[in-house]
């Protein structure tokens, strides 16, 4: 299994103040990895650093075997890194179809493939993205990320503002994507148990430091481990 993402001893943050310190983790092909942690742990910052939107302070990040340091974010994206950021970053003034066309490299084929995961979007193709419901918007964000045929998919808090029942429907799709396309998925999630159900492995961040890592099923069994890491107990 090829290593898609390799984070080694990374510190990152804003304006010289580090938010994440000495983080080491990796994502392999066909794997769903979830990054957990309480608010302010540095999960989103980690994803932003991987896609090049936040500069690295120390350590090394390799995406598809190439260091991201000093590279422009759109260049990294073009190599097959798709990032569904917090807030979804949809183009509200554009229609659903236009949103999807922007990502699609080889035209309609990619769009069809993306829509096969989210058939609910099909009747909405002509509607402006800003008029969709929250769940539909999240589906569109994910579908748009899929149109680029990603080899590595970063998904940030897709459950934000959504009813748990919708999250329960969306998360297994990530599993399917990883299984069917062989892409690696790195998922940041607040719904710990739902995330652990679909993930292979999990990392837990707290106050910018890695406090726990392991296979998802193991962590799911031992609730106290995660609870104590969230609460900061030793």
């Amino acid at each position, binding site marked *: 299994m090829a290593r898609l993402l390799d984070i080694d001893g990374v510190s990152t943050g804003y304006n010289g103040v580090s938010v994440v310190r000495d983080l080491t983790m990796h994502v392999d092909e066909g794997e769903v990895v979830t990054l957990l942690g309480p608010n302010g742990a540095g999960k989103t910052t980690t994803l932003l650093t991987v*896609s090049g*939107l936040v500069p690295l302070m120390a350590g090394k990040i390799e995406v598809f075997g190439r260091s991201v340091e000093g590279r*422009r*974010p*759109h*260049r990294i*994206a*073009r190599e097959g890194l*798709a*990032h569904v*950021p917090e807030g*979804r*970053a*949809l*183009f*509200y*003034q*554009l229609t659903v179809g*236009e*949103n999807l*066309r*922007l*990502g699609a490299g080889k035209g309609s084929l990619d769009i069809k493939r993306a829509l096969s995961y989210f058939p609910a979007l099909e009747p909405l193709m002509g509607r402006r993205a800003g008029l969709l419901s929250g769940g539909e918007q999240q589906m569109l964000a994910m579908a*748009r990320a899929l149109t*680029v045929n990603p080899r590595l998919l970063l998904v940030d808090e897709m459950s934000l503002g959504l009813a748990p029942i919708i999250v329960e429907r969306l998360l297994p799709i990530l599993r399917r994507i990883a299984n069917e396309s062989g892409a690696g998925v790195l998922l940041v999630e607040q719904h710990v148990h739902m995330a652990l159900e679909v993930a292979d492995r999990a990392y837990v961040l707290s106050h910018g430091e890695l406090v726990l890592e392991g296979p998802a099923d193991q962590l799911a069994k031992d609730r106290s481990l995660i609870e104590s890491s969230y609460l900061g107990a030793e």
Partner: protein
Amino acid sequence: MKDAIAFAFLGLGAGSFFALMATGLVVAYKGSGVINFAHGSVAMYAAFTFNYLRIDGRLRLPWVDILPTHQVNLPVQITISSGGKVNVWLAVLLALAMSALLGVGMHYLVFRPLRNAAPLGKVIGAIGVMLYLQGVALVNFGSENPQPKSILLPDTLFKNFLGFGKPMPGENLGLFIMAVLVGAVLWFNYKYTRFGLATRAAAGNEKGAVLLGYSPERLALFNWIIAAMTAGLAGVFVGSITGALTPTKFTTLIVPALGAALIGSLSSVPIAIAGGVGIGMIQTVTSTWMTGKSWFPDWLQSGATDAIPLVIIVLTLFLRGKSLPIRGNIEERRLPLSPYPKRIGWHVAILVPLGVVLAYGLPGDFVFAGLSGKWSFAFMTSLIAAMLMLSYVLLAGYVGQISMVQLSIAGVSAFFMARMSANGVPSPQDPFAVSGPGLPWPIGATLGIIVAIAVGVLLGIPALRIRGVQLAVVTIAAAVALQTLYFDNSKLTNLMAGSNAAVPPPTFFGVDVGSTGPRGLTDSPKFVTFCVIVLAAMCVIVSNLRRGSTGRRFLAVRANERAAASAGIDVARTKLLAFGIASGLAGVAGVMTAFQQQQISSSNWVYFAGLIALAFAYLGGITSVAGALIGGMLTGSGLISVFGSHQSSGLHTYTPLIGGVGMILTAIIHPSGQAMLFQPLLQYFGRWLKAARVPEWLVVARRLGPYVVLGLALGAIGINPWRTDEWSRPWMMLVGVLLVLFVRSIVVRIRSGGHEPSSDSPAEVSA
């Protein structure tokens, strides 16, 4: 009615020009979120390029030779055809390539560095570009103003166009077809191509576009090129319609184009095209047909054409209410901090006597005889400019309202006062006296200021719903409309447009404090003192406003209108209050200008000068009273500029250029202006000077002395091979010293590892 339609077709030419310009504005806004006030100057430069290629076959490059030597020169022109004229279409191509080059330059050198700046910073950047291009045109194209010839259907004249009984030049139709074609191509581009889609996407959400692998900066670059090329097309092809080319050509014509672009929310190309053509037609119908009708109000005859874009802009913005699509995900920096004024009394106690000393000189005459002649006039100009800039500081710096109409408001007060103090009795100095009630000057001045406040508050009403750069657009349109509706309107001013109205000198208890000095020049020390005292009073008022609860309300509105409202501040009242006070300040500046000039004409208040005044206020420091004072000193024909042209006779042709570059650099590097740059430095050296004794001076001398000597030597040797002008000789040694010290400081900074303070900082020496 048949006539009206025929006249409307005549407006097709101007309308198509507006349409093309509006398209470019829309494209630039889509691509980078900038309302490009320099768009007209790009068109101007392309038109000049084209016409000079047709005249002498040389392509002028958009920069000037700044090297201070005649041995090494920057190339400023390329000879395309040594035999003179270049083929028309080759010339068109070259002119378009030139505008594309300008687009590239604007992207990389100005608007990309400014992409996160506050809206006012971008406006200043655009004004800087405008000034720069005008300055370059002034130098490179000289004083010759060619009359452009038509390119499209030049010899065609439809004798009876569509059977309406009026002739129409074929050029109009050609321009219209071109505008529609360009519009169609661009519309298709933004609707269906991947580039167009990505542009719209990046305008909505930059982060999303980046994460899909698009570079918003690359997109912005291509959009700037397209925008600049449409401006080039408009400038080259508009041909004979708008008269002889001058460096300030098209700067006023940007207003109708802005109106057209705003109708389409700055995002729809087809609506911009339709709007531009429509405005052109309505203007022509108004100026040629409606004004001839008996029902048309007499006093509106001259200004109606320019009022149309203003009405359209205000109506579209006001009725739509919802603002333009704002670029998503751009982290906009706020305006710079507005410092809390301290030690007002001390400043007054030092600066006012300093001003009086400058006016009268020191007793005994042998030390310093006081400013006279052009120096005194320049000092007055600076003081009065500072008054005007205080109005910008209050309005733009404290409340964040970008108004470009303040100079015109000053003009309103000056014109009203002139009319009120006129009595219609002709005299040898003033044979065509303006009729009026002949009020004494204090009443006339007060009335003028009151009218200025009224006009200012009226123009502030749109600001209740229109914000940011859009307000700037409204105020530009208002300034242009005021110009033709009032200043150039003989029905209201009783003055031929462009001629002068006399202003009687002010007196205090029989003492003449007018600006005419004892030698008959405009250099009266009494008037300078008068200016100093008025300016000091205004500074104290503005500082105290800033310190009090009104100032806190101003800053709260500037920071966040909704938050201010939720904290119990009446935002509408606060804004109108600010417009009222600022207009009062501008009114005082207008009255003082009238006293200084002793006569006024409409040419004192052209809207373009108002833009430059705002830009100089920004250069000085838009958020502080000190900034207004520095801005006043920097202003054109102010003290510093006169000093500069005194030292170098040729400098005045470079003034717009230097000003433009200065504005762009200030907006990018130091948005808080010169005041905030010098204040800490002055305080720092002040403290050092206070503490420094002989040993400290010795250390500095030992460290820097050799470099000073080296610089002096280099300067002395450098005179002959370098510039040979008379004026520059004594300065070359000083330049040499400064250069050597500058190079040394850079070397020291690099050696010490960048951000560490350099080792020769006086603080460490004295420690």
